[in-house]
């Protein structure tokens, strides 16, 4: 039987994540130094603590957590999350999901009909763009500076799209230690965007996997918190927080908080799609928070990552030609390089893999047709100091030769 005739329309055009293919293409290179990944370092997994929590939870609460759980998520975990967040929040304003990807998927499924517009940043996280694409959204990207998306560009874009009769459904933002761009939104920019979105009735989806990974400086309140505490109405922002980068992605636990009515719809989707997230993992995260292990653990991760960021910044400073620029984040796991206009990072990727260095070409982080080719993303949490030194040096050599 020929399946291709039977597949749904969207399935016939659906694309696999390009990053998966890129990473696969370098898989067999021995001694490759890879700055391509987006994985947290396993050294940051609190596995001994998690191990004893898992055993405890199964032993003491097995008949509860091994059973089907609630589609909106474990109430015990929600209670702990409310305490952790430290501000007024009700259980019905939250849903627990199978990672942030899953929350973003449900949010999008609640709001998008084929052809509707999602505003996103240029660049933005590829995994999410793939999700948007799979739901046939029209992603329109907005240029960023060091403080976030540029207000004038946002306004122009909205005006133009609305003149064309397009239905703008929401704005997708990664405000802290942006993946891939490495920037963090200033407080002023956050407020400007919230005000503008309230005035223009554009909901905001805030994706926050990295905000707790701050190694230096003062943290900036999330869009969700700013909206909730300083604006009216307060329900314009839905924030997604993942435990992937702070406890371990293998747990696949994240949560979304937002307007009650919207959350209820996301829960209905969850009921149709997975019934419930993994109940054991939910309870383990709840107990981890309840025992007060999180703060010390976060401090450990930040201390662990900080020297790697510093090392990469130092090496870039030391070796890169002056026409190359990069972000200087105060946390997260990525740096973003901007090369001279005439250098194509897709081509550089191929040359670099011959020199046993790998990264992700920036073009992969833009919606199709809106790419910029002179950018690239570097991850600094998955390599040793020696690898960072050697890898950055080889990249710099390659670039110098091209200039």
């Amino acid at each position, binding site marked *: 039987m020929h399946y291709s005739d039977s597949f749904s329309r969207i399935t016939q055009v659906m694309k*696999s994540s390009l990053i998966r293919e890129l990473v696969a293409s370098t898989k067999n290179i021995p001694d490759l130094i890879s700055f391509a990944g987006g994985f947290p370092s396993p050294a940051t997994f609190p596995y001994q603590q998690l191990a004893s929590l898992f055993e405890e939870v199964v032993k003491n609460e097995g008949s509860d957590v091994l059973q089907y759980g609630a589609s909106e998520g474990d109430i015990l975990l929600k209670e702990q999350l409310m305490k952790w967040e430290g501000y007024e929040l009700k259980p019905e304003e939250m849903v627990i999901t199978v990672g942030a990807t899953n929350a973003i998927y449900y949010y999008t499924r609640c709001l998008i009909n084929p052809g509707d517009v999602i505003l996103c940043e240029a660049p933005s996280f590829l995994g999410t763009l793939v999700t948007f694409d799979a739901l046939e959204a029209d992603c329109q990207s907005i240029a960023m500076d060091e403080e976030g998306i540029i207000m004038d560009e946002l306004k122009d874009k909205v005006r133009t799209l609305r003149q064309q009769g397009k239905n703008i459904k929401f704005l997708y933002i990664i405000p802290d230690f942006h993946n891939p761009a490495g920037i963090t939104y200033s407080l002023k920019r956050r407020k400007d965007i919230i005000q503008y979105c309230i005035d223009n009735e554009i909901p905001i989806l805030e994706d926050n996997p990295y905000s707790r990974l701050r190694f230096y400086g003062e943290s900036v309140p999330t869009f969700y918190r700013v909206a909730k505490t300083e604006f009216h109405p307060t329900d314009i922002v839905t924030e997604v927080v993942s435990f992937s980068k702070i406890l371990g992605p293998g747990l696949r636990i994240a949560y979304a908080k937002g307007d009650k009515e919207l959350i209820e719809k996301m829960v209905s989707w969850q009921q149709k799609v*997975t019934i419930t997230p993994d109940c054991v993992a939910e309870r383990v995260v709840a107990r981890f928070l309840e025992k007060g292990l999180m703060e010390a653990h976060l401090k450990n991760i930040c201390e662990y990552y900080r020297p790697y960021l510093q090392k990469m910044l130092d090496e870039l400073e030391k070796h890169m030609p002056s026409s190359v620029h990069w972000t200087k984040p105060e946390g997260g796991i990525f740096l973003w390089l901007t090369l001279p206009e005439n250098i194509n990072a897709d081509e550089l990727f191929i040359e670099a893999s011959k020199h046993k260095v790998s990264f992700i070409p920036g073009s992969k982080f833009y919606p199709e047709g809106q790419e910029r080719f002179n950018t690239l993303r570097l991850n600094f949490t998955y390599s040793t100091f020696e690898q960072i030194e050697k890898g950055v040096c080889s990249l710099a050599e390659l670039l110098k030769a091209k200039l």
Partner: protein
Amino acid sequence: MINDLQEILSVNIRGMKRSAIRELLKYLNQPGLISFSGGFPAPQSFPVEELKGIIAEVMENEPYYALQYGTTEGDNLLRSQLADRYKKLGIDVTMDNIIITTASQQALDLIAKSFIDRGDTIIVGLPTYLGALSAFNSYGADMIGIPMDDEGEIPEIMEDEIKKSINRGKKPKFIYVIPDFQNPAGMTMSEKRRKEIIDIAHRYDILILEDSPYRELRYEGESQRTLYELDGTQQVVLLGTFSKIFCPGFRIGWVMGHPDVLDKVVIGKQATDLCTPPFTQRIAARYMEKGYLDPKISEICKMYKSKQKVMLEALDEFMPEEFTWTKPQGGLFLMATGPEWIDTDALLIDCIKEQNVAYVAGTSFFCDGKGQNTMRLNFSYESEENNREGCRRLGTFLKKVIANKS
């Protein structure tokens, strides 16, 4: 038990008015409620002791693997364990024919996504699993229900409906069947029936989706071969799950089928949740590797067989004679049918209010909105005593309803 309440609600509130839902909620909190509603395994069936040891081992030996992102296709160790298990049953598969999903509900969603465009037709049983109907519905499928006899969907009617659909320019995208201990009706397809349906699928070149969560829970009679095996050409996609034979709190299921189909499911899954937790997958894989699965299944079967026996005897004793019910050879459910005029939907709240016992009204399982005189009863979750007591209460209630009518 909050979990079960939620299930009662979720399956019963379709089409209910808000006021009725509020009332239902109120009565669901009554102490001493006996629930035959959910599709829940008995908590006593969970392998808590074995799990403790395995979790400790996985965390000791492979924490970095278990806590890191995994591939979307699933843990290779688990995939190959599953493939080996099928091979032992004589089915010719390798790991490449199997991918892992966040339990079978997700597989149903992803298969629906892969095949269904709004307005496409799908062949389903009358009745069939509500979660499947709702997954297909969410992609705008047009469901064609096929009446069933003791052996499953009636092939002549199925063929007829397929022909009609093709004549309307809509070749059905797939035939959805639950051949073993069907949810909710409880029947199992004979080998002959399986072959007839495969035959139809071949004749009209239509995919079969074989959803098989209860297959291993057989309490009597001979096991039937899967449609997947009987077909042998990978025109069948088989869905399996650990929910009823291990524990549903670990959300792990699998899809077995043609690589072209699996490819699409994987791409869809990337956009849905990236991967099923590698941690729980690895625990499941080690659990299988240590040979715990099969002895545990025998234990579960013994437990459920006895629970089912208690329920069947109690139904005999207490139900009004106007009612009949199925006597499945396995699974978690049986389905009771009353006189035509009975409306189980309308009676549910009174039944809970007056007798403190809950069932699922049958209409939820019928894509044509019929079945209002049927109800699904679960026998796996409550204790044997409660199974008996619940049937007594249900019988008392229904006898009163019937007496009042005449």
